[in-house]
């Protein structure tokens, strides 16, 4: 009985004509989740065809369990399709519907073949449902994983992008911070800053927090840690770019920034830094236009 059951399903997949393929594609395209903006018709067709062939050969040894070795090529191919869709920005529904659209044509065929025998139809339908559901779940899982990989990669890129240490002058470094500060970022910021202090022999580092949207106790604590670490290395820190709201928040929170030089904007901080390193800037009056 079990063998007979999978034979029928297998025969459906192994039939040489393209009827199953055509119906499948028609359902995918009519499902209200049109995929043409995600994938071209020709590509979709070749993907579906390849998948049907793979499933057919996977079932050649009467395998119906998706976890068996016979199904490895099918899963690999599904994974590939899913990953490609995730990167192209398809929705999870669109991706899952790609597989679930196969149900209708299969069920139609089962009904035509064994529709007269209710018991058998139920058995066959159950087998087909198991197979397609398992494939659908797998494709959704890979989709999710691919999206998470994208997110993780973006986070890493942001972390690198958002911590530049620039040299403003001989012995003066600036660290323009952008975005929310959390522990992981502070750690990176601290390390890059200290490393640059060693490399350049800078005496003064200006931490500009114009791009930091909010300051809470945690962020303030991170800032103080960075300043202290720089001081331990023998460099002074100036915090600049403190907006009025942030100044209010810092005082309301009771954060003690008394030991740190703070300036309202970067240019004030830079002037202080120049003065401390012994430079001064003059307007060259000789060059004034006559």
């Amino acid at each position, binding site marked *: 009985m079990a063998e007979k059951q999978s034979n029928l399903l297998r025969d459906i997949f192994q039939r040489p004509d393209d009827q199953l393929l055509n119906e499948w594609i028609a359902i995918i395209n009519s499902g209200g989740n049109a995929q043409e903006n995600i994938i071209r018709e020709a590509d979709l067709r070749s993907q579906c065809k390849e998948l049907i062939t793979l499933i057919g050969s996977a079932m050649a040894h009467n395998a119906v369990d998706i976890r068996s070795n016979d199904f490895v090529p099918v899963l690999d191919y599904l994974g590939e399709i899913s990953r490609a869709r995730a990167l192209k920005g398809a929705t999870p529904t669109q991706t899952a519907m790609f597989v679930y659209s196969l149900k209708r044509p299969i069920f139609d065929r089962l009904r035509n073949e064994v529709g007269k025998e209710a018991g058998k139809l139920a058995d066959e339908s159950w087998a087909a449902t198991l197979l397609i559901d398992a494939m659908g779940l797998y494709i959704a899982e890979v989709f999710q994983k691919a999206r998470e990989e994208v997110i993780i990669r973006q986070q890493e890129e942001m972390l690198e992008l958002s911590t530049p240490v620039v040299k403003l002058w001989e012995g003066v470094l600036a660290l323009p911070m952008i975005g929310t500060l959390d522990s992981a970022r502070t750690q990176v910021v601290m390390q890059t800053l200290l490393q640059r202090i*060693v490399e350049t022999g800078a005496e003064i580092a200006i931490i500009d927090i114009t791009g930091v949207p909010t300051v809470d106790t945690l962020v303030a604590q991170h800032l103080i840690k960075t300043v202290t670490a*720089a001081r*331990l290395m*023998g460099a002074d820190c100036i915090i600049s770019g403190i907006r009025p709201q942030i100044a209010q928040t810092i005082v309301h929170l009771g954060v003690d920034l008394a030991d740190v030089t703070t300036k309202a904007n970067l240019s004030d901080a830079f002037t202080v830094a120049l003065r401390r390193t012994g430079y001064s800037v003059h307007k060259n009056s000789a060059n004034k236009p006559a």
Partner: protein
Amino acid sequence: MEKIPILRMGRFLLVTIQVDLHDRLAMQLQEDLTNAITKYNARGVLIDISSLEMVDSFIGRMLANIAGMSRILDAQTVVVGMQPAVAITLVELGMSLPGVRMALNVERGMQLLQQSLASSEGALLDENHQ
């Protein structure tokens, strides 16, 4: 028993820590340094920790202690050449060494000591002048 050498440079003392600073060595250094300050009548102590790669809270406290003791004996302490990793560790341990002056390298440290010596002696001269 290994010992950390204390070098005399004019009115300053130079201590370069080039071995792993374990606890007994640290205590020994504290002892030797305070003796040396009184013996040579030193006005400044420069501690180079650029080869120090690991610290714990004990070493951190010891640095603070040395600075405190030197100040009582009228000598300024400057710690120079702290590695980034060491600085981060000390901050994470909650030790900001508030009483200790820091400099990036020996040259800067010497400048700091000379400046503070010059200013304190200048003040002394001013008082005598008046």
